[in-house]
């Protein structure tokens, strides 16, 4: 189940550079650690995070096993038009989370 905290301004001036911050609950299991029974715990990480502004991709990162649990992503975008910023996390074991926020550009 998705458990996400997003921090972004609700309104921005046209052309303004805004910061969007997102934190998600995820174990980011590396796939290199042995469990209590000695066998390796299967890798379970978020592989990709993408952000779209009104459907156009504006930011994307690939995450690696070295990134800590509950990854925090912060990025900047130029506010062009009012609309929806979509945030999408996808990864191992069919992990798919989508959240969206509305931003009004004046």
């Amino acid at each position, binding site marked *: 189940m998705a458990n996400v905290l997003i*921090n972004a301004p609700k309104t921005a001036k046209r052309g303004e550079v805004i910061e969007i911050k997102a934190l998600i*609950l995820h174990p980011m299991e590396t796939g290199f650690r042995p469990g209590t029974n000695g066998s390796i715990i299967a890798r379970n990480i978020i592989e990709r995070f993408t952000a779209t502004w009104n459907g156009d991709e504006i930011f994307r990162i690939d995450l690696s096993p070295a990134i800590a649990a509950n990854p925090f992503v912060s990025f900047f975008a130029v506010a062009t038009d009012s609309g929806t910023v979509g945030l999408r996390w996808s990864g191992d074991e069919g992990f798919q989370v989508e959240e969206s926020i509305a931003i009004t550009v004046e």
Partner: protein
Amino acid sequence: MMRLRIGLCLASVFAASLALAQGGTDKRRSGYQDMGPSLQRMQDDGTSNPGMLFVQLGAEAWAGPAGAANKACADCHGASGATMKGVALRYPAIPEGADTPVDLEGRINLCRTTNQQAAPLPAESRELLALAAFVAHQSRGQPIAPPDDPRLAPFLDRGAAIWALRQGQLNLSCATCHDDNAGKKLAGVTIPEAHPTGYPVYRLEWQTLGSLKRRLRNCLVGIRAESYAYDSMEYVMLELFLMERARGMAFEAPAVRP
């Protein structure tokens, strides 16, 4: 919407919490004051503090019915959790009808077994920590206020005795580091005064939320002593002593610590 509300609420209590932590002639220091500004900001910002993810989880668990009684915490205590304001500040305490103290996690499990008729949640399980974080978060910014219950005195004394007891292969007591050498360095890290101001705490080293019990076990392992069992009374008595020692300090849960 919920995340926004939490953010606003945090911003308003933060000013109060700093004033409390650093006010007056109180020389006690919370671990918060020994952290760098970036970690302090991480704790204060409700959308960058990973502990708040667990508070959200806790809010869901709070509203969800459980057990044979099919009752949710919210059914008796109210949906918002506002009735839990100040509760985390006064535990461990002796619950009604009992004669030994329980800590906050223990109290939640007691409510589960008696009122919800559900199985108790395992120690350090995500749901128990989340519920504890949700309850504790309601008291953020308020001063720690242990109950003035004379029946607690023997447990408090025993907690103080464990605090001063040298144990383990390194033959150290809690007091050796956290009373006598607090503020000095241990392997490059500042030794904190060990005030339990922000539990359950999000520890970056753990990459998750953990209880005060887990932290105490951490220290016991560090001095090469044998940890007490998770359900043992020793932890509750130590927690009782620590909360009394931190009486009046600002509560920060869920805190972030390195």
